[in-house]
């Protein structure tokens, strides 16, 4: 089985982001960038499948500028065999990302595609679902458990009501929840080894697809600030405040 993992480079989850002063977006220059967290779970799952002998080749794909090589190197330090960077100067919308991935998938012919359930920058939560529809492959979203046996795929999905268990087959597109596994840290020797693993670069303009934006961002602003509250001294004061000041109990 061949597994393809899609990886996005995003502002690190620990960074307190800043809205640009001209309200055109969020500051991403000179900010720590990392692998999108649920994409790390997707990488980890692919590496586990290889360790279990279920996958024989695991590859990662990212779309972005040259800097996105970082996240691909990280994926290879975690155990991915080789990577593909689709070079694009523009930020792509989920539909365009999915169309780009489809072209890579048509060429690479993986049996399984894994990615995070959402990117923590634009929080769209769309790409896996769109890709699955474009490929006409089964979709499994927000998975927290995966078992593959004799070409059968058993997944547990995190839904608002609890957990949903589905059975499907390969090829499939699965999007990963943070609880699917615990991503490993890349060891220093593995980081060194990853530098020698193959990283192919493809220019997005050579793919012949429309990746133009369909959505125009008019402005990006700070969210409304909550006014500072007060510290109460004890439980009695708290309950009194909730009852007679806030009037919520």
């Amino acid at each position, binding site marked *: 089985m061949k597994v393809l993992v899609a990886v996005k480079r995003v502002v690190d*989850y620990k960074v307190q*982001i800043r*809205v640009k002063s001209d309200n055109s977006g*969020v500051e991403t220059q000179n900010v720590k960038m990392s692998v999108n967290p*649920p994409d790390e779970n997707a990488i980890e799952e692919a590496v586990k499948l290889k360790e279990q002998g279920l996958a024989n080749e695991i590859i990662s794909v990212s779309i972005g500028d040259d800097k996105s090589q970082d996240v691909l190197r990280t994926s290879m330090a975690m155990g991915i065999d080789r990577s593909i960077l689709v070079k694009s100067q523009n930020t792509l919308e*989920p*539909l*365009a990302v*999915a169309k780009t991935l489809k072209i890579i998938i048509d060429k690479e012919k993986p049996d399984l595609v894994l990615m995070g359930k959402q990117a*923590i*920058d634009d*929080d*769209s*939560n*769309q790409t896996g*679902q*769109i890709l699955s*529809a*474009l490929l006409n492959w*089964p*979709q*499994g*979203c*927000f998975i*927290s458990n995966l078992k593959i046996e004799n070409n059968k795929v058993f997944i547990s999905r*995190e*839904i*608002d*009501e*609890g*957990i*949903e*268990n*589905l*059975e*499907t087959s390969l090829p499939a597109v699965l999007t990963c929840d*943070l*609880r699917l596994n615990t991503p490993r840290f890349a060891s220093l020797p593995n980081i060194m080894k990853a530098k020698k693993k193959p990283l192919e670069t493809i220019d997005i303009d050579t793919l012949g697809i429309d990746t133009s934006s*369909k*959505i*125009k*961002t*008019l*402005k*990006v*602003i700070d*969210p409304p600030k*909550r006014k500072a*509250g*007060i*510290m*109460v001294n*004890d*439980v009695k004061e*708290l*309950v009194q405040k*909730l009852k007679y000041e*806030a009037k*919520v*109990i």
Partner: protein
Amino acid sequence: MSVLVVAEHDNKNLKSSTLNTISAAKKLSEDIHLLILGNKIEDLAKSSKSIQLVKKVIICDHEKLENQIPELSSPIISNLAENYSHILAPSSTFGKNLLPRVSALLDVTQISDIIGIESQDTFIRPIYAGNAISYVQTDQKINLMTVRPTSFEKCEETGGDAAVENISFIDSEVKTTFVSREVSKSDRPELGNARVVVSGGRGLENSDNFKLLYDLADKLNAAVGASRAAVDSGYIGNEYQVGQTGKMVAPELYIAVGISGAIQHLAGMKESKVIVAINKDLEAPIFNIADYGLSSDLFQAIPEIIKELDLLNQIES
């Protein structure tokens, strides 16, 4: 033009998220159609036609639609699309699972998780876990959007008499089969919809201690929530998680107990009207957004709060 709302339901009742989504649709059109895809949904169709804002209820009733497999439902929706200017679904795991597939079939870009509607083509949505708010505009032939339920009021469920139209099921070859659903039964209000939410974090230390929170929640007729740390640690199920990758809530009162307040958690609850934080760590970031902070050991504070609430109830009765 008309707006189509895709209903979230359990084949018996509409989820309240559907009612919030209908209110969002009202900002776009007077001609709102509600699409219900499900199995044995005659009764659901009957009760839904009394929603005042809905002009037409469109029903597709088929046994294969019992479990909301998106591979089956998305082509039925895309097939109706040409009649509509907008298609809306709640931004729940139901809507997130389904609507992007429809967008792929229609070759349009979906706008996720809108919290405001400026005009027919301009929408407001949070990005970066709500740490920035984006105003976006589109001129696509049709606009597909998921709607954050807590950002729109629930619409009235009565007073209307909508027409009901049955449409035929379109079968697709689907390789996915439903196995089971593990749903926790609770008499407490639904988390996304409760007036009061009591949430616990890593400070609770284990699942047994969550019983303290349940007692407090029951006193306040509140729903129970949790931070990701508490869910990851196995103290409580994933369906209770509040935050960027869990549920968004905006109750009148949110009580955060033993929760430090990572930005990913704040993303899910900072729209609450009144926020109370109880944490023994005075440096916890949750205090920065709390209306009332109590720096105290939760294992002492919670039983005391329950006692005080009992006292209040006695005085009142």
